[in-house]
């Protein structure tokens, strides 16, 4: 049983926007968000990410399992949102800190988590490795059927 991260990746040219996918537990009915924390370890806060220039120098580099943020819900659960793609972290969404509601109300637009820029050489293989909306739904369906 592998953990499905329920991340959604929207890509423009090479830029990727990481958002929660529709089946993420946080987006299900009844969940309220208590806090969102971009401080993922003692030494690393995603809020301190600074990029400069066209090539986005100075960005924190992310691997697939790099945590972007940790979100706690009021029922005591904590969820870590992982990057799921390799690349430079361009920005994290600070709007959800001041207004956590938009994460649940508009997860695919204003409630995005982060913007990542993969390496030029890797960008094609990354987009090919993702599931389309249809494929995602099929995977979910399979799980539902297999677990019941």
């Amino acid at each position, binding site marked *: 049983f592998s953990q499905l991260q329920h991340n959604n990746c929207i890509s423009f*040219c090479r830029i990727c926007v990481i958002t929660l996918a529709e089946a993420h537990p946080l987006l299900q009915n009844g969940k309220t968000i208590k806090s969102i924390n971009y401080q993922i370890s003692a030494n690393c806060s995603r809020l301190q990410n600074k990029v400069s220039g*066209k090539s986005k120098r100075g960005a924190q580099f992310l691997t697939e399992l790099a945590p972007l943020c940790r979100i706690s819900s009021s029922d005591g659960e904590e969820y870590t949102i992982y990057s799921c793609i390799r690349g430079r972290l361009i920005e994290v969404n600070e709007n959800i800190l001041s207004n956590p509601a938009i994460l649940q109300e*508009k997860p695919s637009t*204003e409630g*995005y988590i982060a913007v990542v*820029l993969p390496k030029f050489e890797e960008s094609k293989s990354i987009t090919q490795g993702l599931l389309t909306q249809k494929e995602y739904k099929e995977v979910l369906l399979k799980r539902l059927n297999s677990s019941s």
Partner: protein
Amino acid sequence: MSSLTEKDRPIVQLLLNTGTCPRCILRFCCVGSQTLYRHPYKDLMKDLKEFLKNNQEKEDTVCSDVVDPPCKRIRLEHTEEGPGDLNHNGALQQIPSVNDGNTAMEDSAVKVCNVCLGILQEFCEVDFVKKVCQKVNSADYQFTSFVFSVSLPPQLSVRERATWLLVKQEMGKLGLSLAKDDIVQLKEAYKWIIHPQLSEELGVPADGKSLFEVSVVFAHPETEDECRFLATACPDCFKPAKNKQSVFTRMAVIKALEKIKEEDFLKHFPCPPSSPKNLCVALEIQCNNGAVFVAGRYNKYSRNLPQTPWIIDGERKLESSVEELISEHLMAEFKADSFNFSSSGREDVDVRTLGNGRPFAIELVNPRRIRFTAEEMKGLQQTINNSSDKIQVRDLQLVTRSAIGRMKEGEEEKTKTYSALIWTDKAIQKEDIAFLDDIKELKLDQKTPLRVLHRRPLAVRCRIIHTMQSEYIDEHHFRLHLKTQAGTYIKEFVHGDFGRTKPNIGSLLNRTADILELDVESVDVDWPPTLDN
């Protein structure tokens, strides 16, 4: 208008003996009369010999306008005795006496000058002039004047230096000095001689400011290695060569010659310079016309046309482009090598440009044709407009390079007006959008849009929407006219770009909005001047 005097005599004799041509001799005697240099080679040679044979007591001046036939008796004496009064204890080198075998004295083959390597000899002759003009005429350029630029092999500077030192020493014996700047420059003398000939043959004047350039590159392979000693003497003057071209550029050689000490120079380079076997060769004769600039304004009626060619990995993604549709005909008419297209801002592939259109300017590089009347420009404009319905141009005209600045300043400072077709998710009524009309000078904070973030730095831009005017269409659509500051991202103002443009139409209406169509209605730059087409 100086001419040769007594004090010049030893110099003339010395240089003639060591293989220097008459015109170079005149240069080193600081003769500044342009006409003199234009005299035929043979005449100059004859006059110099005459000058030498004149009795010292006579104190004759040589001015080719008035030729004094020398006293016959004295002449005969000289031919009998040989050049008895010519003692040259070359402190630098033993110079062979004049009667040694064949010298430049006789009518037999002209020896290549050891200073100019033939530039002031063969390359002043009518054959070369004809060759240059043939090249110019066959290249089929339109021009009203010309500038003739010549690239000389660097070793000429070395030989010039050696000869100067030689002459300086000789004059020192007479207690006279010779500053380097007093000597007539080789290039200058060459132009004195060749400009009138080229001018006559081409039918237009020579003009230093001319946009039409005829350039010749000379080389002398035989003596190519003569500059090498400078590299050991002044290594820091010679930077490693880019593109595998020779390190010994003219500039580098001149710099090194300024640095090197006289003694070091004389240690490494023969003084006087040796006589070469061959003349220089003219490697290339090229013509080039200065760029012309054509300006105008364009309208774009297609929602499927990029401004510049859209090519990824060698594959063209969309057919044609604004710049190609406009430049194609200009390139053909002006017969240019290439073009550079620029405009006062630009629009996306799917955005139309209406109204008066967007100012643009095209630089046409090395055009063969440069003169076009206003009528002809109008005709060109018509041709472009007839060839495509995707774009149209107006106010097509020739402008100067400096005028381009006006266009670029428009890009940053001037306002633009747009018309956007907007969709909303939740229903709207007329009242819901009416308030937009009252908002003035709305300040936006726009983070670099995601769609361009891969090639632009991440930043926040403050931009102003000056005015808005809404047109209700139905419950999910309305048209919005906006007047904005230059550099405002309109699409992002409508859909919000994931909340990264604030405020946005969605946030103002408390709905989700998206943009279906965008048109540029005006680019508020009053350049180029409007023509009454």
